[in-house]
C-alpha cells in the first residue's frame, strides 16, 4: 500500500486530497530528477552516504589484506597510497558529513512539525553537487588517477612538482565543490530550525537532536570556508603556478593551519549530531526525559566552540615553540569537560531505569564503551611529548577510529535502527539487529584495539608494507582477520536493511512510544509531513497526550499550494505563511553547470568561464517568474 493510497483510506477528505496533490513529487524516471521534498532528498543523502560507506569499507578491506603479512605483494605502493587516500576522503567527506546531514534533512523538519526544509530547491541542488563530487572522485580512482597524498594532502608533497598528474587536482577541486553541498545543507538547516518550528516549540523545547544539528550546521558554516580557501589556493598553486604553499615564496605550514582549522572541527561536525541522536534514543528507550537538558545543550555548544581552538594539536611535530604547543594541550583536553558532562548526564538518565534493550539502545551502549576509550586516548595524544611518539602511527589510527566509529558510526547505526520505521514504515529485524550489533562491536574492538599497541611498537601509518624482522606480522594478521568480523557485522546490518524493506514488521506511527513530533505522523510520512501543523506546549509533545488523543493543531494554512508556517526565532510564535517552490529540474542543471566549471578547471582555464555562463543560464531558469510567484506577489500587495 503506498503512502498515497493509505492516506486516502484513512482520510478521504478534500483537504488531504489537495495536500497530496500539491506536495506530490512527479512520478517516473524523469520526474525523479525534479524532486525537492525534504523526505526524498534526505533519503537520497542517506542512501548515497551508505553507498560511499560501503565503498570506503571495501578500500579499508583492501588495505587490511595488504597489511596482513610483512612485505606482502597484494597491492603495489602507488595503488595502496591511492587507496588509503580515497578511504580517508570517502569516509570524511563523502560518508560521514553527508549522511549526518541526510539524517538531519529527513528528521529535523519532522521533529519541528513543519512541511519541508526552508529552501527545497537548494536542498536538491546540494544533493546533486554531492553526488557529482563523489562520482568524480571514484572515477578518478577507477581511472588510476586518484590522489595519493593522504586525505590531508600536505604540500609540498601535494604540489605539482612532487605529485604530477591529475590526482591532487581532483582532490583540490572536488573537495571545494563538495563543500558547497555541505554549506547549502547547513545554511538551510539553520534557517529551518530557527524559523519553522511548530508554534510553541521555543528553543528550549527543541529535541536535543535538533540542537545538535544546529550546532553542527554552524560549525560547518565556519569550518568549511577555510578548507575551501585552502583547496582553491592549492589548486592555483598546481594549475596556474601561484606560490602559496611553495617553501621560500610561500609556506607549506600555511596549508596545515588552514586544513586543520577545518579538519579538527570536522571531527566534531561528525560527532555532534551523533550526540544528539544518543540523547533522543536514550529518552525513548528509558521512557524518561534525559537528565540535564540545559547542561546537554550547553555542552554541545561548548564542544562546538572549543572544537575551533585546537587545530594546532595536529601540528605538534612541526617544530612549534614549546610554550604555544603546551597551550594547545590544555585547550585540547578541555573538550573532555563538556564531553564528560554529556556522558554523565546520560549515565544519570540510565541509572535505575529498566530500558528496553532494543538494537538502537545497544548501539548507544556500544558507543559508551568505544567513545570513552577514544576520548581517553584523545586526551593522551593532546599531550605534546606523548604525541611526538604516536603522531602518524597506528596508535593514532586506533585513536581516531575509536572516536569516529565509536562516536559517529555506532550512534548512526543506532539512529538507523531507530528511525528506519519512520523512513520505510517497517521495523528492522530485531534478532538480526542484535547479531549485527555484537559482530560489529566485537569485530571493531578486536580490529582497532591492537593498533594502539602496534603504534607504540613503532609502526607508522600510511605504509603499504613493513619488514618482517620488525615483528608486526602476527598482530597485523590478527587485526586483518578481525576486520573481516567487523565487515560481517556491517554486512548483516545492510542485509537487515534490505530484508526489512519488504518483510519487516509494519511499524505504525510510533513503534517505540517516543516523545518527539516525527512520530506523530504516519510512517513513512506523507509528502506534506503533517496535515495540520501541530502545536507544542512542552518538551515531549507526544507524551503529553494519551494514545489516540489528538494533538492540538494550527489551521488556516492553505492546502491548495505548498505552504508552511513561519514562526518567531525564540519562542516560535506564528508569524506568517510561506510558499515553498515545487519540483524543478533546475537544481540538477545548476549542479551540473557548477560541476563543469569546477571540474573543467583541472583541464583548461576556459572551463570556469563556461561553467559561469552555464550557471547563469541555470539560475535564470531557476528564478524565472512563474504563476505562483505572481500569485504571491498579488496577494501581498
Amino acid at each position: 500500500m503506498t503512502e498515497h493510497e493509505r492516506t486516502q483510506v484513512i482520510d478521504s477528505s478534500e483537504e488531504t486530497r489537495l495536500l497530496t496533490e500539491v506536495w506530490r513529487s512527479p512520478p517516473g524516471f524523469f520526474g525523479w530528477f525534479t524532486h525537492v521534498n525534504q523526505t526524498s532528498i534526505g533519503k537520497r543523502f542517506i542512501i548515497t552516504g551508505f553507498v560511499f560507506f560501503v565503498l570506503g569499507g571495501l578500500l579499508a578491506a583492501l588495505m587490511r589484506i595488504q597489511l596482513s603479512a610483512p612485505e606482502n605483494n597484494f597491492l603495489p605502493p602507488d595503488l595502496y597510497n591511492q587507496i588509503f587516500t580515497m578511504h580517508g576522503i570517502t569516509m570524511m567527506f563523502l560518508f560521514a558529513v553527508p549522511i549526518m546531514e541526510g539524517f538531519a534533512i529527513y528528521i529535523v523538519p519532522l521533529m519541528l512539525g513543519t512541511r519541508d526544509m526552508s529552501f527545497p530547491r537548494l536542498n536538491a541542488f546540494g544533493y546533486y553537487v554531492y553526488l557529482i563530487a563523489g562520482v568524480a572522485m571514484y572515477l578518478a580512482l577507477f581511472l588510476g588517477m586518484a590522489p595519493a597524498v593522504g586525505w590531508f594532502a600536505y604540500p609540498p608533497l601535494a604540489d605539482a612538482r612532487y605529485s604530477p598528474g591529475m590526482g591532487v587536482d581532483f582532490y583540490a577541486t572536488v573537495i571545494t565543490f563538495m563543500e558547497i553541498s555541505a554549506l547549502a545543507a547547513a545554511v538551510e538547516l539553520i534557517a529551518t530550525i530557527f524559523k519553522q518550528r511548530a508554534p510553541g516549540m521555543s528553543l528550549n523545547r527543541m529535541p536535543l537532536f535538533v540542537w545538535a544539528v544546529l550546532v553542527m550546521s554552524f560549525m560547518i558554516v565556519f569550518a568549511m570556508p577555510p578548507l575551501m580557501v585552502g583547496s582553491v589556493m592549492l589548486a592555483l598553486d598546481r594549475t596556474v603556478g601561484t606560490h602559496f604553499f611553495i617553501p621560500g615564496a610561500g609556506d607549506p605550514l600555511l596549508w596545515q593551519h588552514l586544513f586543520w582549522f577545518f579538519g579538527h572541527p570536522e571531527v566534531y561536525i561528525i560527532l555532534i549530531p551523533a550526540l544528539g541522536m544518543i540523547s533522543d534514543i536514550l529518552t525513548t528507550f528509558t521512557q524518561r526525559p534525559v537528565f540535564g537538558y540545559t547542561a546537554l545543550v550547553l555542552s554541545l555548544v561548548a564542544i562546538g566552540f572549543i572544537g575551533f581552538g585546537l587545530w594546532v594539536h595536529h601540528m605538534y611535530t612541526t617544530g612549534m615553540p614549546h610554550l604555544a604547543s603546551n597551550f594547545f594541550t590544555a585547550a585540547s583536553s578541555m573538550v573532555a569537560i563538556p564531553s564528560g558532562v554529556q556522558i554523565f548526564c546520560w549515565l544519570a538518565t540510565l541509572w535505575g531505569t529498566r530500558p528496553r534493550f532494543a538494537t538502537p539502545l545497544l548501539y548507544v551502549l556500544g558507543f559508551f564503551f568505544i567513545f570513552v576509550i577514544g576520548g581517553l586516548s584523545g586526551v593522551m595524544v593532546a599531550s605534546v611529548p606523548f604525541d611526538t611518539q604516536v603522531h602518524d602511527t597506528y596508535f593514532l589510527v586506533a585513536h581516531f577510529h575509536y572516536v569516529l566509529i565509536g562516536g559517529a558510526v555506532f550512534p548512526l547505526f543506532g539512529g538507523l535502527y531507530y528511525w528506519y520505521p519512520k523512513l520505510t514504515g517497517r521495523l528492522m529485524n530485531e534478532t538480526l539487529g542484535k547479531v549485527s550489533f555484537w559482530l560489529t562491536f566485537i569485530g571493531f574492538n578486536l580490529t582497532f584495539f591492537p593498533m594502539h599497541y602496534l603504534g607504540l611498537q613503532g609502526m607508522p601509518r600510511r605504509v603499504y608494507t613493513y619488514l618482517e624482522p620488525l615483528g608486526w606480522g602476527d598482530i597485523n594478521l590478527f587485526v586483518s582477520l578481525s576486520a573481516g568480523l567487523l565487515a560481517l557485522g556491517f554486512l548483516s546490518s545492510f542485509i537487515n536493511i534490505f530484508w526489512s524493506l519488504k518483510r519487516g514488521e509494519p511499524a505504525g506511527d510510533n513503534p517505540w512510544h517516543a516523545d518527539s513530533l516525527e512520530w506523530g505522523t504516519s510512517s513513512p510520512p506523507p509528502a506534506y509531513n503533517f496535515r495540520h501543523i501541530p502545536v507544542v506546549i512542552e518538551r515531549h509533545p507526544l507524551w503529553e497526550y494519551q494514545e489516540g488523543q489528538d494533538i492540538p493543531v494550527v489551521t488556516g494554512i492553505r492546502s491548495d499550494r505548498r505552504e508552511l508556517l513561519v514562526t518567531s526565532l525564540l519562542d516560535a510564535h506564528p508569524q506568517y505563511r510561506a510558499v515553498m517552490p515545487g519540483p524543478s529540474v533546475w537544481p540538477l542543471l545548476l549542479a551540473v553547470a557548477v560541476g563543469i566549471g569546477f571540474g573543467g578547471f583541472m583541464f583548461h582555464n576556459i572551463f570556469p568561464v563556461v561553467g559561469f555562463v552555464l550557471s547563469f543560464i541555470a539560475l535564470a531558469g531557476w528564478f524565472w517568474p512563474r504563476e505562483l510567484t505572481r500569485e504571491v506577489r498579488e496577494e501581498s500587495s
Partner: protein
Amino acid sequence: MDLRRLRPVSLVLSVALLSACAGHQSALDPQGPVAERITLFFWIMVSVAGVILALVLVLLVAGQFRGWRQRQHRPLTYIQSRNLVIAAGLVMPVVVLLAFSLSSAATDRVLGKPLPEDALTIEVIGHQWWWEVHYLDNRQNRIVTTANEIHIPVGQPVRLLLKSADVIHSFWVPNLNGKTDLIPGKTNTSWVQADRSGTFRGQCGEFCGLQHARMAFLVEAQPAAEFQAWLDRQKQPAATPADPALARGQEVFLSSQCIMCHSVRGTRAQGRVAPDLTHFGSRQTLAAASVPNSRGHLAGWILNPQSIKPGNFMPPTQLAPDDLSALLDYLHSLR
C-alpha cells in the same frame, strides 16, 4: 619518579604480546632520557584512563543492575543526578585535566631542554626516500657525511638539525625520542641521547610519497671511544685501492653513470643528489634500511633498484658480469 620501576611492567607487556622483536623500534622500550620520560608519562596516563573507564562502566552496569533487581524504575532524584554530573562530569575532569596539562608540560621540558654549547651536532636532511647525515664541528662546518646510518656516542646528548630537501619528512627513533618534522625551508632542532649501546631503528614519521614505507634508518649507539674512532675513520676520504681487482671496480664505478648522483670522497665522484658512498662498505643496510647490505642485495640493487624499492629515483645500470663483480668488491671495500 623513576621509570626503572615501571620498566618491568612494560617489559612483561612487550614480551607477552610480541616476543620476536621487542625493543627494536618501540616507544615502550625507551633507551634514552627523552623516550624514558615520555614512556613514564604514558604509563601514568594509561593508569588514570583505566580508572576513569572503569568508573564509567561500573556506573553504567550498576545503574542497570539496580533497575532490574528492583523490578521497577529506581531512577536517581534530580539532586542526585545533578551531583553526579557535577562531581563526575565537571569537577573530576577539571582536576584530572589540570594535573594532566601540568605534567605534560613538565615532561615537555625534557624535550625542550637546552643542550650544552659543545654538544655533538648532527645535521639530518630528509630526501625522498633516504637520509643524508652530516656531522658538524662546533663552528657548524660539515666534517663527515654519511647516509641512512647515524652513529652516536653513548651517554651524551646529541643535537639534531633537521632539514628537508623536498617534501615534509619526520625524524623518529621511538626508542630514543618522539618525532620532529623535517620541513623544506625550515630548520627544526631536536636531540637524542642513548643510555646504552645498541642499534635502534628509526623510520620516517610523516607520509612523504611513494616509498614512505621504506624510509628507515639505523642509529648505532657506541661507547664514546669507539664512536670517536668511527668518526675519525669517516673523516678520511676513500683510499685509492692498491689491489688491481678493486682498482678495476673503481674504474667501473667512475666510468658509469653512478657518479652523476653519488660521491666517493677522494675520487672524482662528486654527485650530491644521492647518498654519499665514501664508507659505504661499513654500512649494515641498503636503500634506507630496506635490505641488508649483502653482496646479493647490492647486485640486485645496482642492476634494478626498482625491484627492491619500487619508485625510488635511482636508475638501473647495465653491467657485464665481470664489471659488476668488480664493482661490488670495490663498494664493499669502502669501509
